[in-house]
């Protein structure tokens, strides 16, 4: 039911782990739902995402979307990265099964939270 691309990101996740000494941290989801994602980012002085990593508890879709969102965000400015939507992530993965669109595709939310966290720490907005 998963696309090849999803399976690739599930089997070979990119940017898995935690950025050391992160500039922003976003955690979304809930273990009771079976999905938790934690995104850590390092931001350079042009407000570009220099490094990004994820840790995810969740199903195949949750892990693949996490991996994909880190790839999409890396190198982007915070403003650009904030524009990354659930749908863009799903599209980049060649689509997700309908029942997964919703619940296991929190990665872009995690990214937004990490950016928010960065901003609140650095006073920008």
């Amino acid at each position, binding site marked *: 039911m998963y696309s090849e691309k999803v399976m690739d990101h599930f089997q070979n996740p990119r940017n898995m782990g935690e950025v050391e000494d992160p500039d922003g941290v976003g955690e979304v989801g809930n273990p009771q739902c079976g999905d938790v994602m934690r995104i850590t980012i390092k931001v350079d002085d042009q407000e570009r995402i220099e490094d990004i990593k994820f840790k995810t*508890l969740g199903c*195949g879709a949750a892990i693949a979307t996490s991996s994909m969102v880190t790839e999409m965000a890396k190198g982007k400015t915070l403003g650009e990265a904030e524009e990354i939507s659930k749908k863009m992530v799903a599209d980049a993965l060649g689509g997700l099964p309908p029942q997964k669109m919703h*619940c296991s595709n*929190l990665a872009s939310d995690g990214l937004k939270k990490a950016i928010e966290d960065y901003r609140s720490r650095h006073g920008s907005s």
Partner: protein
Amino acid sequence: MKDPIFLDNAATTRTDPEVVEEMKPWFDERYGSPATLYAMGAEAKQAIEEARQRLADLIGADVKEIYFTSGATEANNWAIKGTAEALASKGKHIITTNAEHHALLMPCRHLEKNGWEVTYLPVDGEGLVTPEAVADAIRDDTVLVTMAHGNHEIGTIQPIAAIGAVTRERGVTFHVNAAQTVGHVPVDVAELECDLLSLSAHKFYGPKGVGALWMRRGVRTTPLLHGGGQERKRRPGTHNVPGIVGLGKAAQLARNRMQSEAKKLVELRDYLIEGIEKGLDDVRLNGSRSERLPNNVNFSIEGIEGESIMLSLSYPTAEGSRPVYVSTGSACVSGTLEPSHILLALGVPVEMAHGSVRLTLSHENTREECDYVLETLFEVVERLRSMSPVYKRGASKCATGNDNDGCDCEAAG
């Protein structure tokens, strides 16, 4: 890709090659309908009657009390709705448990929508109900007690004979869903003291799409299907001759093999259980340790999610590795937002229920395969835990007292 290791035998089994062989001629050589009088019909009739006898022998039934169906789902629907309809004037109360397969739960739910009342007896932490609890729940208007013999997910075997004694004494019809036990452990309808019993061929090396309802003579149960005169006018439709022949052959094989097979399976099962308990921290065996199907292993694994365990096992990346096919009670697989209601019924915390994995053996699995599976499972768990933002060794979430409320997953999404 190397040969897969199939450990999802509670879902379905490989049709035994001997069964397939026996079915073959009934497709394009001996294709008459058993309802017809000419030789080609008469031989089909004889074949399905032989199958009926073989099944009767397996479950200690009178051959005249067996009705072939399209599977256990149909048999359960027939038993439950048919008894409810036949006895509606006597009462509209039904008793079951809160840990049943959807093929039994959903007919009950449907009746609830239509004016029946259903009591869902809570199972204990091992998945068991007691005869006393059933006795206490029986009311004057109770017409049916219905439950599984062996639980498909956690493997727990209910004390059916003792419950049967209660229902017999109280004059309440007792239906047993034996889809997981027939062919695997001794099932004798006389000993179980039940009135109706469902089974499905593909759960014990027979073909998919065929099963049976055993109905004690004199039990009042309205047919589910109406039509031609087949199956003593109680289950119409042209007989699925090859399927029924296959069911009969599977019953015969089961009768011969069951004892030695069960012994072997129990050994492999316990080998897996011990292996997992030794090899992994923060795991929980689901279901009863003693009252357990010979082929069922079910664990919740802290800090990770079941679908990702399942996918990792079944789509391995390393060159030359064997896919391992298992199932999980995770919500991601059930297609709902809730994990398995059966695990929740045991009191498994919801986050642990998401992280469950079920391994169910067949007589074709070997000790070597189990070794391979254990090793692979350990690697997978290690890797997924290393990815998990919440897992910390020993800090078991099981103990946090979180219960099943408060999972507003929809809103979170």
